[in-house]
């Protein structure tokens, strides 16, 4: 039991959301539950983009569009949105979970790896699983967990002690667990896994600890490893590029790096390259697309000569084997931690000739939305900067050098959403002026290894924004400024809405076509998690966690709040 965590778990059912008398009531400890807990078929997972009842993937569907197809809640009636219920978890701490909903059953996670199954109509707890944590956990940025994956009769999640765990969806009992990597060396898990057919896919945290990153596939039935893709190849040197993906000079000292390479050798074994957000899955081509995080140590390039492949990159691999297909590196030899973390989205985009092609979008910490050709990962275009960029790329110094964006972005890990009808992507951004300081120290054997620090400049104003980008042109279509830097995620719906929350507790709905604010709710703690939506018994809900954020020190809480239209 962690100190400071409330031992009280309570379900508060509010007055809205009356259910028909015919609704089946759950029987505590019995077998009669609402919905069928053992029904997540591959067909359901594959067709999730058109499923207006469930929310089956962390980012909505395999393409990760976070575009929900139900429109009962829409621009004309969203003003009537009210809380249907509030569920309070046992853990009052940072929340980044994406609620998953299967046939009226909701699965959410908390900090320190608690998992709950709830009745999505009422918020009533069905079961609670608390992971039996090992003695070594690792997290750079809060004891986060971003949720579960569901398939068949199982629920899967990753843990801070670097395990992948499968639970019985009906009871919450553990079926198996697999040690993914050695936690003492800095490996840990905060991302939700993804499931495709008989594989559970998961990456790793640890870019701040000198790990060697990977994406692994495990057998859904046994937990046995099926394949591993190392995000850092044994030859991580690359082509010694001096420009970032947008063509700006990064002021690399290539001769010094080549000398260091000759002296030190390839740094691949401790080069970082975590993958801690879900891959987009293309079942048509049987390929995965994911983004790879920063090199280790974050700010000190002197110990890692070369481009540091495939850190700070979009990477595509074969779904069945994990073999490399293509990549595009946004920032070679990054010394600012302005890496690639927001999960990529597959959608149709215009290429440079104006033809529709299959594309991949990524919202960068740099503040650009990058638009790729899915076929070869090549960059078609990048958007206008969504946040101020100043003095890019000023190298970190011993005294600390100011440059914008700060190391959290732009777009942090927060997933973007799109509306394919408007051909717009929606991103939430941070503006946090920082200084970048370098301090070279040797590999500390699995301890924090930043190679310096990125420090918020206390006297400069911080803020955030919600930005819609036309991904066919790269132009900003609309932008709304927020009081605080934004972290958490966003959801678009067929009702012409986007939903996103703020660190000050506000949860808002905007008109997805023009950014007009249509609704707001004060949640009482930071709303810094991605919203989901679902429909039960004909009633559409929007649900989001309000637990604050450790990284940005937004007020912590423990609430899962579901909203529906007032009668």
């Amino acid at each position, binding site marked *: *039991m*962690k*100190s*400071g965590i409330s031992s009280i778990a309570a379900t508060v059912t509010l007055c809205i959301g009356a259910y028909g008398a015919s609704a089946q009531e759950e029987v505590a400890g019995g077998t009669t539950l609402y919905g069928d807990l053992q029904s997540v078929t591959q067909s359901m997972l594959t067709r999730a983009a058109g499923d207006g009842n469930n929310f089956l993937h962390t980012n909505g569907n395999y393409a990760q569009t976070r575009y929900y197809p139900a429109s009962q809640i829409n621009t004309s009636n969203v003003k009537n949105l009210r809380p249907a219920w509030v569920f309070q978890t046992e853990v009052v*701490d*940072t929340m980044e979970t994406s609620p998953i909903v299967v046939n009226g059953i909701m699965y959410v996670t908390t900090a*320190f790896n608690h998992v709950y199954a709830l009745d999505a109509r009422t918020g009533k707890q069905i079961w609670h699983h608390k992971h*039996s*944590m*090992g*003695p*070594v*956990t*690792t*997290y*750079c*940025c*809060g*004891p986060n967990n971003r949720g579960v994956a569901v398939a068949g009769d199982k629920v899967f999640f990753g843990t*801070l002690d670097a395990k992948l765990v499968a639970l019985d969806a009906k009871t919450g009992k553990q079926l198996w667990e697999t040690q993914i990597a*050695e936690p*003492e*060396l800095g490996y840990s898990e905060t991302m939700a896994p993804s499931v495709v057919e008989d594989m559970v896919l998961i990456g790793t945290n640890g870019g701040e600890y000198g790990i060697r990153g990977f994406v692994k596939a495990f057998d859904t039935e046994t937990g046995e490893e099926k394949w591993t893709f190392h995000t850092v190849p044994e030859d991580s040197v690359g082509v010694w590029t001096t420009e970032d993906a947008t063509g700006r000079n990064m002021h690399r000292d290539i001769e010094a790096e080549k000398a260091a390479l000759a002296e030190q050798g390839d740094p691949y074994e401790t080069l970082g390259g975590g993958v801690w957000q879900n891959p987009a899955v293309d079942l048509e081509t049987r390929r995965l697309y994911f983004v790879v995080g920063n090199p280790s140590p974050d700010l000190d390039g002197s110990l890692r000569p070369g481009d540091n492949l495939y850190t700070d990159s979009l990477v595509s691999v074969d779904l069945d084997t994990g073999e490399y297909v293509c990549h595009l590196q946004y920032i070679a030899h990054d010394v600012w931690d302005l890496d690639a973390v927001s999960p990529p989205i597959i959608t149709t985009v215009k290429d440079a000739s104006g033809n529709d092609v299959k594309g991949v979008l990524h919202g960068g910490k740099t503040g650009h939305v990058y638009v790729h050709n899915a076929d070869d990962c090549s960059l078609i275009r990048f958007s206008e900067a969504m946040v101020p960029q100043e003095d890019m790329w000023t190298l970190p110094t011993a005294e*600390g050098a100011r440059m914008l964006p700060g190391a959290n972005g732009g777009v942090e890990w927060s997933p973007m959403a799109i509306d394919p009808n408007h051909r717009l992507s929606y991103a939430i951004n941070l503006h946090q002026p920082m200084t970048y*300081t370098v*301090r070279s*120290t040797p590999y*500390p*054997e*699995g*301890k*924090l*290894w*930043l*190679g*310096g*620090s990125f*420090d*918020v*400049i*206390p006297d400069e104003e911080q803020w955030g924004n919600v930005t819609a980008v036309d991904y066919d042109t790269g132009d900003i279509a609309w932008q709304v400024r927020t009081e605080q830097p934004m972290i958490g995620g966003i959801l678009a719906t067929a009702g012409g809405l986007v939903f996103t929350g703020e660190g000050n507790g506000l949860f808002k709905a905007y008109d997805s076509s023009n950014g007009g604010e249509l609704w707001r709710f004060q949640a009482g703690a930071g709303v810094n998690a991605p919203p989901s939506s679902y429909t039960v018994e004909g009633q559409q809900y929007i649900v989001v966690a309000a637990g604050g954020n*450790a*990284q*940005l*020190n937004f007020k*912590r809480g423990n609430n899962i709040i579901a909203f529906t239209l007032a009668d």
Partner: protein
Amino acid sequence: MRLPFVALTLSLAASPVLAMEDFVLEDEVALCMSCHGDAGVPIEPDYPVIWGQQYFYIYTQLRDYGAGRRQNDIMTPVAAEYDRDQAKLLAEHFAALAWPDIPAEIQDGDEQLAERGITGGQCSACHGKWQGDSRIPRLAGQQVGYLRKTMLDFKNEVRMNAPDKISTMKQLDEETIDALSRYLATIDIQ
């Protein structure tokens, strides 16, 4: 906190020198308590509370002392005697004890100064609500003198086994460090 000993097959650095051949846990615990207190309250204000501290943090510090990554005239020679398993036994013992209640007082303006320092340094990203977890030490209720000394040792590049803290602490002035020390020492998470 659950404290199983797991068989770690690691590629970490070699164990410090040699295992203490006549290691007796009770004797070593008594040695530790001669400074860190027989009821958990250290005998000097700038010695740390280790009763109820995080298991993996204690283990890591013993390893760092033993390997010379963290320097202290008393601790370095003591820890150099322990091998990996002996260090784990000691860490397990002290982590399982109850954190002592040590009175501390906050002054007007401390909280505001501390919050400003915490936000600038992004301290809560790792330290959370100061309760500690595994490799992250508990700071809540720690001795004011030890907290202050530790932050100043980072700032002045005396303590070198968490070098990334050096840059962070260099951003804080002594007034803020004093306020932060008092603030953390008075946080009650019992």
